[in-house]
């Protein structure tokens, strides 16, 4: 009988069609935070449950107590593939109300109209944060600010004093400028017959920034790191690579693999954070006894700063509660108490003047914390918010070709800029 066949086809279509509707339509709530703070909201973080569960449960409990009638569901995602998880949620229309993001994740979400403009919806809170931190979630080409600044981080450069000593270098005088770094690195490689490299990573966009290379034009519409200074930096790195002062596996290294190389004494210097000190103490006690701590190397006088933010989903049905909670998580009191649990720094105005960030107590941890807090006051987030993962790969591949001698540094940077510009245009 034909009816049953038609019924089957109709059933199949009914089963499949809803899938095609995923992510379509704008069924969000109010675009401002002026309504009553109530209702259920979801809050997504990035690999924080394992170490900070009690802290976040306390933050949520405080909020629910302050605003009766609210309920916050906390979702914590693994760091691995976090961007992919957000993009799946964003495309599927299931983005949580409040999301932990970094500026490069905010940019595409803001362009797609999924991040709430806080200048409009919550501009009154702006003065509570450091000016630079508030600006870190602004996107070139769009007006507005798309996430509350949360914690900031910078990091010292660790070095292995034993390796410095063995190479005849003064372990108490680590390099401060790029010139010093290149000289010491070549010396270290020469003295160890190429067995000890100083660095384990190829230069990234932050390195170009710290070297004083302009990264983008003022409008944020084109990249510019292929200028003479950029070529100079890459040429110096090529010298390091040829002399084995840059680890041979640097072309395929990740931050994790280079960290491991530093831990095993295969490389002499590695960037890190105060968190790493605990790892060194536990996993490599002999390294810990000889660890040297110095500031990031920079030619601009401004170290690199990483910014974390908390975004509100522009399509949230509970915008007032979502904005209030995002502010609650990032306010001065909560940021300060979070900073005391982990080696991060608050982005709220005046918090860095707290004695916790200014007074020495003789320990290495405090020394690193105070040095980092001091450098944060004029630190710069060198990573352009529009610099996507695909662009990072493009730059990395062209740099690798230059280091291998397959193309000149000029050609490499011209190609990288060309590819990044194409990707930028395709972003829309």
């Amino acid at each position: 009988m034909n009816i049953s066949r038609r019924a089957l086809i109709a059933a199949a279509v009914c089963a499949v069609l809803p899938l095609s509707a995923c992510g379509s339509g704008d069924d969000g709530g109010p675009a401002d935070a002026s309504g009553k703070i109530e209702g259920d909201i979801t809050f997504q973080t990035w690999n924080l449950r394992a170490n900070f569960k009690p802290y976040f449960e306390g933050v949520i409990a405080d909020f629910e107590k302050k605003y009766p009638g609210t309920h916050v569901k906390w979702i914590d995602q693994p760091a691995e593939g976090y961007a992919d998880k957000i993009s799946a949620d964003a495309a599927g229309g299931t983005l949580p109300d409040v999301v932990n993001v970094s500026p490069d994740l905010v940019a595409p979400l803001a362009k797609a109209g999924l991040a709430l403009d806080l200048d409009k919806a919550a501009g009154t809170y702006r003065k509570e944060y450091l000016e630079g931190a508030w600006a870190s979630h602004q996107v070139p080409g769009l007006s507005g600010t798309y996430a509350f600044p949360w914690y900031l981080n910078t990091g010292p450069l660790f070095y292995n004093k034993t390796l410095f000593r063995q190479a005849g270098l003064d372990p108490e005088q680590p390099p401060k400028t790029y010139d010093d770094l290149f000289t010491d690195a070549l010396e270290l490689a020469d003295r160890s017959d190429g067995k000890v490299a100083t660095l384990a990573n190829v230069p990234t966009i932050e390195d170009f920034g710290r070297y004083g290379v302009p990264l983008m034009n003022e409008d944020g519409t084109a990249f510019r790191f292929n200028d003479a200074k950029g070529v100079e930096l890459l040429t110096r790195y090529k010298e390091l690579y040829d002399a084995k002062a840059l680890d041979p596996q640097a072309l395929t290294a990740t931050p994790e693999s280079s960290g491991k190389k530093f831990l095993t004494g295969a490389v002499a210097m590695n960037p890190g954070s105060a968190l790493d000190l605990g790892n060194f103490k536990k996993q490599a006690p002999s390294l810990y006894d000889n660890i040297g701590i110095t500031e990031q190397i920079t030619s601009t006088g401004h170290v690199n700063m990483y910014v974390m933010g908390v975004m509100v989903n522009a399509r949230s049905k509970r915008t007032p509660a979502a904005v209030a909670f995002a502010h609650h998580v990032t306010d001065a009191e909560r940021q300060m108490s979070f900073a005391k649990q982990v080696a991060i720094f608050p982005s709220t105005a005046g918090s860095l003047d707290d004695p916790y960030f200014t007074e020495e107590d003789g320990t290495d941890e405090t020394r690193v914390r105070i040095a980092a807090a001091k450098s944060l006051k004029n630190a710069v987030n060198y990573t352009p918010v529009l610099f996507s993962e695909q662009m990072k790969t493009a730059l990395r591949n062209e740099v690798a070709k230059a280091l291998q001698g397959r193309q000149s540094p000029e050609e490499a940077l011209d190609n990288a800029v060309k590819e990044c510009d194409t990707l930028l245009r395709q972003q829309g």
Partner: protein
Amino acid sequence: MTAPTAPSRIRRQLPSSPWLFAAPGLLVAGAFVLWPFLSTLADSFTDRRTLIPGRFVGLANFREMLDDDMFWIGLRNSALYVLGVVPALVVLPLLLALLVQKNIPGITFFRSAFYTPVVASIVVVGLIWVWLLDERGLVNSLLETVGVGRVGFLSDQWLLLLSAMTVTVWKGLGYYMIIYLAALSGVPRELHEAAAVDGAGAVRRFLTVTVPAVRSTMVLVGALSSVAAFKVFSEVYLMAGPSGGPAGEDTTLVMLVQRTGTGLTGRVGYASALSVVVFVVTVALMLLVLRADRKEERV
């Protein structure tokens, strides 16, 4: 005219009843296989991005591929992977199966040992091999001890690809060994005995009795392993890193699909077009292997 009886009603409904039984499976396959496939095919003709719905761009993505160096690098590496891995995975598991076929004391241990890499997580396997082949890993330490010096298994473009192929073969041996064991159990013992009586040695018996008897299984293994090899991702990703080796030179086609199409700024349209190419090539590979098999059968 009399009203139809109950049995005749049942008879009239019978032709559609198989569809009812198949319906749950068809619905699942439709929703999770057919629909994504059709959706990918449709996306391949658009400039869709992760968060931005695409516009129809015709064959623009496919034309762009022709000028995309990374596409050709990916295609080359995936093809090399098939050429490097498939012969090894057709022959070596057969030899291994012959070794563990005999029921001698303790053979179960060896069968299990050879099968262990199959059930081990590819991430764990990848990490172990990275540790082994690292510039300061076990293999390089041994090579240095015997005076060969350190070899850049993970820093040289070609050695890296070869290392990943080794891992694929090592991990796949046990799986295909089991398939061959099943096939070998069906080879009549009398054929071996007759060949032995005629004076055939072990090698001759292998070539004239065993190989023809398991030929269809070898074709199956060839087809399965060539499709898997062309779609390789994990081994190369774990050993070469997310950028696909030095300067991305070890990128395979599936790695390129992942890199291009994922993340908040992913080019879903272009990645879909790349996926369509992967699909077409894998279907072509299957047809090629099966056609070669039929031709040989006719001969």
